[in-house]
């Protein structure tokens, strides 16, 4: 079997584009050195102060600030070295038809420099010691070159799964997501390369927990309610986020997110909707500003005297199901309150109820009340009455 057939034609095209862009950017630096000019890179700043929340688009975006990474700046020299080192590894992988992971990249670039220090002692320094360091320069390269890692065919582990009445093309195959039996389709790490063929669904339900996904799938939720069912299996990875974004943007499907009723669940929703502050440059591609928080909300648990909403749980159920919030939960909730996109009346109410009751609840508690309750009462009525947070 020839090499050509082993990898998909989709990958070939993507690879060629990335090679060109990386090469162009770094040859500029080589030329500077040859001309005797100070070699430097102007890289958009990935700091909090250069992260802007675009209220209209509801996205975290990188601002216009850049920083100057120059080889001749003592404080930047090591980072400069790491950046060109990382670029050279990525470039070589692209040229050699490889699919590195970020862990691979770390290993490939981990060299030991032996040198004499100012006291004449021979000392050793690694180009990087921890993956934290190589990851940071990878992010610098993403913004410097203008390509996300997936576009440079850097792969990562991927937890997201999907089922539903829709057909897609991935690689050179067509896959029917309604024919997965009791199993599911595991999303690829490069979802931009997926092509949507046709879809027969009215909305997307994203559940935080894999086990709840399994239950709903098995009970036929997506068939009954014409849904695309997705799980992020915890904190969503990049591919799941991008896949959800494309379902919303390109197919116009509304997205409902169902998580535990706790600050960690809210944060998962926030990552789907807005992205993470430290990686705001990705948000433009990965975030889904229209994603809605379906639940479980604090008012689902405790009701809301203001809107006369009744709680979904009885007093006794509440008592048995509720978990006392930990200190880290409280702390995280207080942090969330500082985020711009949590400063809406509904979120402020959510967080305040949480801080007052110091209680949290898992989705499983609702399934504990009965899978039918979750599937045929809770979710449909939440959607129908628009009892979600936008």
């Amino acid at each position, binding site marked *: 079997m020839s090499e050509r057939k082993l990898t998909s034609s989709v990958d070939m095209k993507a690879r060629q584009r990335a090679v060109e862009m990386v090469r162009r950017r770094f040859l500029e630096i080589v030329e500077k*050195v040859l001309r005797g000019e100070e070699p430097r890179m102007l890289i958009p700043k990935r700091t909090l102060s250069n992260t802007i929340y675009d209220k209209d688009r509801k996205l975290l975006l990188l601002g216009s600030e850049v920083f100057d990474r120059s*080889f001749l700046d003592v404080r930047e020299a090591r980072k400069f070295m790491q950046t060109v*080192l990382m670029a*050279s590894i990525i470039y070589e992988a692209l040229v050699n038809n490889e699919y590195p992971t970020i862990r691979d990249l770390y290993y490939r670039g981990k060299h030991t420099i032996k040198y*004499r220090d*100012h006291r004449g002692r021979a000392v050793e320094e690694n180009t990087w010691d921890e993956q934290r360091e190589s990851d940071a320069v990878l992010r610098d390269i993403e913004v410097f070159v203008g390509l996300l890692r997936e576009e440079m065919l850097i792969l990562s582990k991927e937890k997201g799964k999907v089922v539903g009445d829709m057909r897609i093309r991935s690689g050179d195959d067509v896959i029917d997501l309604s024919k997965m039996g009791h199993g599911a389709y595991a999303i690829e790490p490069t979802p931009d390369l997926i092509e949507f063929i046709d879809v027969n669904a009215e909305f997307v339900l994203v559940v935080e927990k894999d086990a709840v996904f399994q239950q709903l799938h098995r009970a036929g939720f997506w068939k009954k309610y014409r849904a695309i069912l997705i799980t992020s299996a915890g904190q969503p990875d990049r591919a799941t986020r991008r896949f959800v974004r494309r379902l919303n943007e390109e197919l116009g499907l509304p997205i409902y997110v169902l998580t535990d009723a706790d600050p960690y669940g809210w944060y998962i929703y926030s990552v789907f909707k807005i992205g993470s502050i430290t990686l705001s440059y990705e948000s433009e591609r990965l975030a889904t500003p229209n994603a809605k928080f379906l639940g479980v909300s604090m008012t689902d648990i405790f009701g809301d005297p203001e809107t006369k909403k009744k709680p979904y749980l009885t007093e006794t159920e509440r008592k048995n199901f509720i978990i006392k919030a930990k200190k880290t939960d409280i702390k995280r909730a207080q942090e969330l309150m500082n985020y711009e996109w949590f400063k809406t009346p509904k979120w402020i109410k959510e967080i305040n109820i949480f801080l007052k009751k110091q209680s949290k609840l898992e989705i499983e508690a609702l399934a504990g009340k009965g899978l039918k309750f979750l599937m045929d009462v809770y979710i449909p009525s939440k959607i129908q009455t628009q009892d979600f947070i936008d």
Partner: protein
Amino acid sequence: MAMSVEKFKAISPAEFFYRNKEIAGFSNPARALYQSVRELVENALDATDAHGILPDIEIRIDRDKVKTYVYRISVKDNGIGIPPQYVPEAFGKVLFSSKYVLRQTRGMFGLGAKMVVLYGQMTVGEPVEVITSPIGSRRIYAFKIMIDIKENKPVILHRASWPKNSDWHGTFVKVAIEGDWGRAKSRIIEYIRRTAIVTPYANITFRTPDGDVYIYRRVTKNMPPPPRETKPHPHGVDLEMLRMMLRSTNAKTLLDFLVMEFQGVGKVTAERFLSRYGFDPGKDPRTLSQAEIEALYKALREYNEFRAPRSDHLSPIGAELIKIGLQAILQPEFVEAVTRKPVVYEGHPIIVEVGIAFGGAIQPSETPILFRYANKIPLLYDEKTDVAWKVITENIDWSYYGVQFPAPLAILVHICGTKIPYKGVGKESVADVPVIESEIENGVRHVARALKTYLIKKRKEEELQKKAITLVKYIPEIARSLAVFVSKPNPATNGVTQELLESKLFELVKMKIGELPKGISSVRDVVLSVE
């Protein structure tokens, strides 16, 4: 009902201390050995440097070959000697001393030698042996003395004298006590080492029972001025003291009493003071009533126009001697010291001195090594409760002075004065009185600033070299990485190799830094390999 009649009787001071030996520091054989050495060494120093004599002191402890719990301590000095008529009582009568005056001396209780004799008598039973020749005397006098405890008086077992044919003067004392060298050893050795630090003008030799000999040679002939006796300051007397002064004065009038018996009170000041408080200046001081004495006491305390207490009778070690002492014993790379201006504590003058030593032979440790002294006596116990410890560990942020622990740093703090505010009975740690705390802190800051200046200069020289190396060491990796992008034929970068990129980058560094430090003339001078 059982009933008995109480028998009342008086006991002599000697018997009191015999029964309560622990209050003088003789609580067990180890502590007693340490305490005995201290008492005798401090007497020897008070007999020499306090009188302008460069001390030569020989200390020796021998273990009895048969009764191994018996130690014989002998201390020989070249001091002023003791007039023969005073010798028996100086060693055989408790509460008899030359130190009961207002003067800065090493001992304050004046119990010292007598307690050693008493303890020796109690545990071993041999008389103390004293050989002395007063300065200017042509004879040498020898005594063997014990104490009659019931009567608190000396028993002279042996007395002799002979003409002197050397020019030696001074005193030799030898006493046998029950001791415990094993447990006292480290404290005694440290005590003598610390004594040597503040007496660099002394020759001190110490021979231990193990046969080891510690020799501290004189490294300077400069000595601090001897302390002198002084009159009390009006702010420094208590009610009972005032009562006693009034009774024993030779002055005939209250005015004369103030002028004659106090320091800092001239005739004009005394007149102004007496009239302010409505006392009759001509009144006989012996005729004051209890109420009048109390009023006078209150007035003396309150009135703040007396001259500040004098301090010229104090004897600080002096910054120079402290530096010499620290240098000689610790062999550091840097040393500094300061003698602060006198301050007043409860009517008594106090002078604080601080020394600092850094680097060299000092072993790095997590906190500064602290040498504490009060009136030239090393304080060894209860370090953590001393105000000086508080200052150097809590008040001072050493990182501000460029010191990162563990560091080879030693601090010496000396407090001298006629009244030291000790914390407990043991007189081993000084209380945190604000005026003293602030004096110590200012002193430490003074010497620490000098250290900082020294350290900054030393560090600057390293900076430039570090900077060049920081850039150069990355050149091979950068050149290798950049070369990857030109590995395929391309007109713009034809013939560009890793070596070319390396040399171009090295040129850039040279341009940036200016002069490169010596020893760096190519990338290979810095980078050994990259793997």
